[in-house]
């Protein structure tokens, strides 16, 4: 079928074509963003490392584990490293400036989290500094912190006795190769954490949030998990050892109905643009009855006129899809940065891009259907007689 004719048809109603294409742009953009959000919500499960296990209290996420557990866990076969990993829950200056901070066993952290790559400062400097901190690239950029800066963090769970802030020295900045392990995290020494707590609240305040371990290659995780759980079967704090994916899942499920809700919104968006596209194609069909009659009289077959509408709709919607995806790509980084504390992993995947384009083309196909069928069934005699 003549592409030139399709093109001319589209240009013959520039406002209509632009508005329709615009609707598709907006919708595909929105669908991409929504899908990326839903994917990101689950990304911490998808991207979890298979060789990392987490030991947490079986009672509650908020019940810490005794420090005495660490050496016992280290005895279990198949474990390479065990590190303390304690949620600190502080903020910088204002509670709005919220991001993740963890007190960690710094020495083995790089072994357990190889996705971190130090791009500024040095890991050794971090290890050597008592109040040292290792921070993510996004965090550094957001608050304009650089190596050598002293960062005050107010502890909400662990306030200082004098009511002041904890102070950390930025010694190194990491980039993350794992989108689900965000770059908005601050890590500092568990030893320093313990030192302060012991001095201000006494030795009974000392505990670790969770233990994270890296298992040896070839080790069966379930065996290790069972062995660790068995160690503390009779208290004082029972534990629950899971894979990192399972550990992350408990946070993801907290989003509750939100992913479903977002999917529903996506469905409505799809419905709305489908109607918009159908509306446009019906208008196009209606005003072209006579032209189609002439073409059929000339000898153009049903297939050709059918294709005329399909190609037109697909070109129109496909263009909208391309632009929409391009917009989504454009906002990807800003959104990812804005969301990274709450929800790392906002990455526009190839799959999402393809899905966005497929939706656009699909909408075009469906929208073309009614006028295309009508056109292919049109009898030239009647079309020519029609008063249009």
């Amino acid at each position: 079928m003549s592409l030139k004719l399709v093109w001319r048809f589209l240009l013959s109603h520039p406002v209509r074509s632009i508005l329709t294409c615009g609707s598709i742009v907006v919708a595909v953009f929105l669908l991409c963003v929504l899908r990326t959000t839903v994917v990101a919500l689950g990304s911490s499960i998808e991207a979890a490392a298979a060789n990392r296990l987490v030991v947490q209290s079986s009672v509650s996420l908020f019940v810490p584990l005794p420090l005495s557990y660490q050496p016992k866990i280290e005895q279990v076969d198949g474990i390479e490293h065990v590190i303390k990993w304690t949620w600190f829950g502080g903020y910088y200056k204002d509670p709005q400036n919220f991001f993740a901070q963890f007190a960690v066993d710094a020495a083995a952290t790089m072994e357990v989290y190889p996705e971190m790559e130090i791009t500024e400062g040095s890991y050794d400097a971090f290890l050597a500094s008592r109040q040292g901190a290792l921070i993510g690239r996004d965090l550094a950029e957001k608050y304009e912190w650089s190596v050598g800066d002293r960062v005050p963090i107010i502890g909400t769970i662990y306030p200082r006795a004098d009511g002041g802030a904890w102070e950390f020295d930025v010694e190194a900045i990491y980039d993350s190769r794992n989108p689900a392990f965000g770059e908005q995290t601050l890590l500092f020494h568990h030893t320093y954490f313990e030192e302060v707590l012991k001095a201000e609240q006494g030795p009974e305040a000392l505990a670790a949030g969770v233990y994270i371990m890296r298992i040896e290659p070839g080790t069966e995780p379930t065996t290790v998990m069972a062995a660790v759980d068995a160690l503390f079967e009779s208290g004082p704090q029972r534990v629950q050892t899971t894979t990192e994916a399972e550990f992350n899942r408990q946070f993801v499920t907290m989003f509750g109905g939100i992913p479903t809700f977002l999917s529903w919104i996506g469905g409505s968006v799809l419905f709305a643009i489908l109607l918009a596209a159908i509306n446009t194609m019906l208008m196009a069909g209606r005003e072209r009855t006579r032209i189609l009659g002439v073409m059929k009289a000339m000898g153009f077959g049903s297939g050709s006129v059918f294709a005329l509408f399909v190609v037109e709709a697909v070109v129109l919607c496909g263009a909208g899809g391309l632009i929409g995806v391009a917009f989504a790509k454009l906002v990807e980084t800003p959104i990812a940065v804005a969301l990274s504390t709450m929800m790392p992993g906002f990455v526009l995947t190839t799959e999402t891009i393809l899905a966005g384009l497929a939706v656009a083309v699909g909408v075009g196909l469906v929208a073309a259907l009614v006028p295309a069928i009508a056109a292919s069934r049109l009898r030239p005699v009647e079309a020519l007689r029609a008063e249009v």
Partner: protein
Amino acid sequence: MALVPFKYTLRSLFVRRSATLLTVFGTGATVAVLAGVLSLNKGFEALFEAHGREDLVVFLRPGAQSEGESAFSDDRADILLKSLAEVATNASGAPLASAESFLAVRLRKTDGGETNVPIRGVQPATFAIRAGEIRIVEGRNFQPGSDEVIVGRPVSERIRDASVGDVLTLNTTPFRVVGIFEHDGPLDSEVWGDVERMRVALKRPVYNRVLAQLRPDAEVAALAARLEDDRQVPAKVQTEREYLRNQTGMLSGALQFLGFFLAVIMGTAAVFTGTNTMLSALASRVHEIGILLSTGFRPMAISLAFLLESLLLGLLGGVVGCLLALPLNGVETGTTNWQTFTEVAFAFRVTPDVLVRAVGFALILGLLGGTWPAVRAARLDPTDALRRR
């Protein structure tokens, strides 16, 4: 100025009914999404803010954002419980104040998986403070000092072993469920038991917050200022309503942003569709407009007729959107209170306020969609219009 008869507008919508329907439903879907987000937010707000009382104050450790982060040792809690002049007293002169423990405990859901359920240990004074607010709807209240709990109705439905007669094991201690309670606010999502028994079972050496009812003449601000850097017991003091508002701030903000974002983006698409429809209405009526103009109707009247038609499309879209959103009313959903990482159950609330805003939004869409076609209609040259077709 003579107006174009309203009949023309109605007839035009009817004649091009496929375009009318497609536009109305397209707009309807957009409006329904907005109404959905608004009613989600309404349900959430209703749960938290609307049930926070102004005469109750919550004492937290300074710097704590929520009770999960807060802690008071026994002696400090005792001072707060007994020595504040602002706190109301009961008939026998005892202060209406209660120390509570709070922990998000991992429990298994009836449909599989685990979730964090807030377990609150309370003192008997809590029930005096919340007289009438907490309703036992099944079974009875727990006996002070015993290993018994009562659970909120939604919890009893969602959580395993949480019906009357069941045994709920917390860490290593079994607690018997003896009653189901209802609360119109967020307390509905909790499990309650005796605070001392809870502290033992969960190995918690501290209280998490103190709750107190104030005398009617008490000044919250003054009390807050005084305790902020009290030497003996520094505490952060908020009314319960304030406290709950701070709890929901983040999610409420997120929902409002989502609603706004969707309204703008989907609204744009809806305006485009509306403009398209009205432009095609214009195109198919050029001749008719020529006749109207030549019989003496002013271009302004023609413009108004188009705008009116577009507004009517918007209104219909708004009505359809509301009808689509109405079934959401009362649908229960769950999300998390990100301050305490606990599950909260709440329902969509399609209130009149939500509907009014949704229809208003639809009318704005109609207005925007009709503007350009109306301008074009006003600019038509009568002789040219008559000649066309």
